[in-house]
C-alpha cells in the first residue's frame, strides 16, 4: 500500500500536484495532510494529476471532495487530470463530474487495470 504525492509550485497562484499509487483508507490521510500544505488564496489554481493512481476507493474520493469544498470556499479552482477510465467512472457515478473540473487521460488504459 503505497502512495506518492509531489507538490510543485508553478506560480504564485498555481500549484501542480502529482499523485501516484493507491488511495484507500490507509493512504488517504497522507494525501489529505499533504494537500493541507497548500496555502489557499483567492483565484488559486490547483491541478492534481492522477495518471499514476492505480487504485482509489471511496475514502480517496472523500479527500478530493474535502479539498474541492475548501478550495471553492476560498474562491479557488481545482482541476483533476490524467484520470484512467476506472477512476473517471467513480467520479461519474458519484455525480462529482457535474460539479468538478475533471479531465480524462488521453493515454491508453494502463495495463495493470482490468476494465
Amino acid at each position, binding site marked *: 500500500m503505497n502512495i506518492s504525492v509531489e507538490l510543485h509550485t508553478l506560480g504564485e497562484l498555481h500549484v501542480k500536484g502529482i499523485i501516484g499509487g493507491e488511495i*484507500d*483508507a490507509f493512504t488517504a490521510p497522507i494525501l*489529505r495532510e499533504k494537500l493541507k500544505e497548500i496555502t489557499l488564496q483567492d483565484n488559486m489554481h490547483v491541478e492534481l494529476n492522477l495518471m499514476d493512481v492505480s*487504485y482509489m*476507493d*471511496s*475514502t480517496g*474520493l*472523500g*479527500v478530493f*471532495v*474535502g479539498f474541492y*469544498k*475548501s478550495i471553492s470556499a476560498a474562491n479557488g479552482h481545482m482541476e483533476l487530470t490524467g484520470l484512467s477510465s*476506472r477512476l473517471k467512472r467513480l467520479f461519474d*457515478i*458519484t*455525480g*462529482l463530474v*457535474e*460539479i468538478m473540473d475533471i479531465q480524462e487521460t488521453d493515454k491508453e488504459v494502463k495495463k*495493470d*487495470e*482490468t*476494465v
Partner: protein
Amino acid sequence: MPQEFKRQYKEILEQYTQRQTELNLYEGQNFSRQLIQKNISPEEVISIHKASLEELMPDLPNDVWHSFDLLIEVMIRYGLALKEHQTLIKKQENFRMEMELASNVQQTLLKTKIPVMNDLDIGMISVPAKEMNGDYTHFLNDDTTIGIAVADVIGKGIPAALCMSMIKYGMDSLNGAETEPIVVLDVINRIVEKSVSDSMFISMFYGTYDTSNSKFTYASAGHEPPLFYSAKSNEFSELQAKGLLLGVIPNVKYEQHIISLDKDDFIVMMTDGVTECRSKAGFIDQNTVMDIIESVRDQSAQDMVEFVFHKLEELQEFEQRDDFTLVIFKKK
C-alpha cells in the same frame, strides 16, 4: 522493598557471581517478568540489587555504593514512564470496550426488518469490514408499497455511525413508503449537508416498489448503479440515475426513473464493497459479478445474496477490505 523479591534476587545474584552460566542468566530473565507483573519500578530493582550486594560483598569500596545512589536517581524517570504506559494500556482497553458497546448500540438502533410481501422475494446481506458498518440499509413498507434505501457512508468509524443515524431519522420523518425517491434524497441531502464535515459524505440509492402494478421507481445520489436482470431477455442492465452524493452541496437535482418487473426479473442493489472487490490478479470486474449472480438466479433472493457474498469472499482470498452490502428484489 518486598522482602521475598530481595531474597530471590540475592540468590540469583550469588549464583551468577560464582558461576556465570546461561541458566543463571535465564533465571534473571524470568525474574524480571515477575517484577513487571508486580509493578516493581526500575529504581526499586536497583535498590534490591544494591541491598543484595551489601550482604554478599560488604567490603566493596564506598565509591561503588555512592554510584548506585546516582543510578537510582537516574532511573526514577523510567519508573514514571512505565506507570504512564500502564495507565494508557488500561485506558485503551476501556476505549475498546466502549467501541464495542457503541457498535452494539448502532446495530440495535439501525436494525431494519426485511418486509414480507406477496409479490416480492427479498434477500439482504450486509457485512462490515471493521467493527462499525459504514453501509446502511433501511426498509419502509405499507400494504402495497415497499421503500428501500441502500447507503454507503464515506468516512469510517464513529463519525460514520452518527451520520447513519441522521439518515435513519431523516427517513423516519418521511410520510411512509410511498414518498417519491427524489423527495427522499432531497430531504436527506439537506439534513446531511448541514451537519457533516468536509470530507464526509454519503452515497445512497432509494427505490420504491409498488406491488399493485409491479413498478419500481428509483433515484440515486452518487450511488453504485443497481443491476437489473430481465428473465425474458436473460440480460443484465444498469439502473442509471444521475445525482450528486449527499452532503456536498445543498441544492441538487436528482433524476427519477421507473421500470416494470415481470416474473423472475430481479434488481441487485449494492455498495462499492461489491464492485471494488480485488483479487491478486486485479479487480473483479462487473461481468464476473454478473456471472456469479446469474448462476444462482433460480434460487431464493436470500440464497442468492449469500452465495454471491461467499463467492466474492473466496475470490478475494477472504480479505474483506470494505463493508459489503447486497440486496436483491425478485418478482415472484
